[in-house]
């Protein structure tokens, strides 16, 4: 088998793979992470607020996102986002959304649920004594949160958040099911066009592997450096 291994096809298609494919994947990962963290923080604060009006919808949302398989969500949103866009902007026709936008919405909403849980765990891990001490000094709730609780919580959370980002990076491959050209999609197209399945898929696997592995090693290093001296 290996005597027929066509390295050339990999090299020839590198520009395409990297400009089209990897850019899509990396961009999606980065933006969805950002959006997911923002939305996730909001959800976490809602869940921690103690007001039923806020905790119940937030909890329902999070549980829903965590129980439905991701691929199904991808399909749903691909169909629904144009209609949601129409509803939100009061236009008369379904909004035309590009594949990227649709994926971005899907991923952000989905990951927000996971980020929310990570935040919640992080915030709750800060001892009550810290809150008590801050309050005893006369700090108001926003100040306590902003200067005492969240800074500590984030330092603890960052490794887990980054790990979740790596998972997100791998999950971007699932957009294959709606024929979107991310890295895997690009590799697939080349594979089918040139009839070189083995090389392309192995290459794709290697790339994902290397990036994910490197990233998790970096997270490990980071974890050791930002740990608060206790």
């Amino acid at each position, binding site marked *: 088998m290996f005597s027929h291994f066509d390295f050339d096809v990999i090299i020839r298609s590198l520009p395409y793979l990297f400009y089209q494919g990897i850019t899509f994947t990396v961009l999606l990962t980065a933006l969805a992470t950002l959006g997911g963290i923002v939305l996730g923080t909001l959800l976490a604060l809602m869940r921690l607020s103690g007001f039923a009006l806020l905790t119940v919808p937030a909890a329902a949302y999070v549980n829903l996102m965590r129980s439905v398989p991701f691929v199904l969500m991808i399909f749903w949103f691909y169909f629904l986002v144009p209609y949601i866009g129409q509803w939100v902007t009061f236009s008369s026709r379904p909004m035309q959304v590009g594949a990227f936008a649709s994926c971005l919405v899907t991923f952000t909403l989905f990951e927000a649920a996971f980020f929310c849980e990570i935040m919640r765990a992080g915030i709750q891990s800060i001892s009550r*004594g*810290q809150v*008590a*001490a*801050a*309050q*005893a*000094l*006369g*700090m*108001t709730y926003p*100040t306590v949160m902003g*200067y*005492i609780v969240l*800074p*500590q919580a984030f*330092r603890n959370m960052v490794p887990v958040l980054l790990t979740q980002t790596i998972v997100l990076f791998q999950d971007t491959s699932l957009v294959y099911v709606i024929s979107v050209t991310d890295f895997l999609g690009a590799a697939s197209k080349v594979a089918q066009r040139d009839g070189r399945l083995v090389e392309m898929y192995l290459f794709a696997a290697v790339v994902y592997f290397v990036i994910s592995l490197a990233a998790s090693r970096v997270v490990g290093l980071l974890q050791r450096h930002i740990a*608060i*001296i*206790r």
Partner: protein
Amino acid sequence: MSAMIEIADLSKWYGPTQVLKDCSAQVAKGEVVVVCGPSGSGKSTLIKCVNGLEPFQAGRISVDGISVGDPKTNLPKLRARIGMVFQHFELFPHLSVIRNLTLPQIKVLHRDADEAEEKGTRLLDRVGLAAYAGKFPGQLSGGQQQRVAIARALAMEPIAMLFDEPTSALDPEMIQEVLDVMVALARDGMTMIVVTHEMGFARKVAHRVVFMDQGEIVEDAPTADFFVKPHSGRAQLFLSKILQH
């Protein structure tokens, strides 16, 4: 002269359990009161009610004339005027020692940064830790952390200080350095309520000793009286156990 801190008929329940039963006490300006008693007697709970960290269902507490239980009271503002020192120090580990002192001043008292820093440095010097300003709490020993905690509370220029078992979490050799700071504070005329087992401290600077058991204030007497001839049997029992060390 009205008392600095007044507690009247204070009662508190955790669900169905009553943890404080009709407690009444007064602390005058400049007085040092030690609260002691077996564990579970409610002494920590009592002291946490004074600055509103714990809510209570019946009775009144007022500090410098301001009612703690009144919903209209601006609690953060009141708390800023009452200093509190905790059993587990509770310094903010992600901030440097000096920042622990300046942040509350800046955020709560709205002092400017230079003034806060200058005051913070002076207080660190007062507790003997000026050299540690740039360090982080995790790098300090327990005794040092507690002294910083006291400085942090003092930076707010409180009218009274509450101490919740300040030395209970310390190794024996570090207890004295913290007590020394507290003694100096008392001699400077600070109004203090101290929950503690350290009877030596009580005998040295306390004006009164309050003994609690099972949520009630059983005895409230001047220091000398308390140690020489406690009235209640429970107090006698407690003292005999404590003083054996």
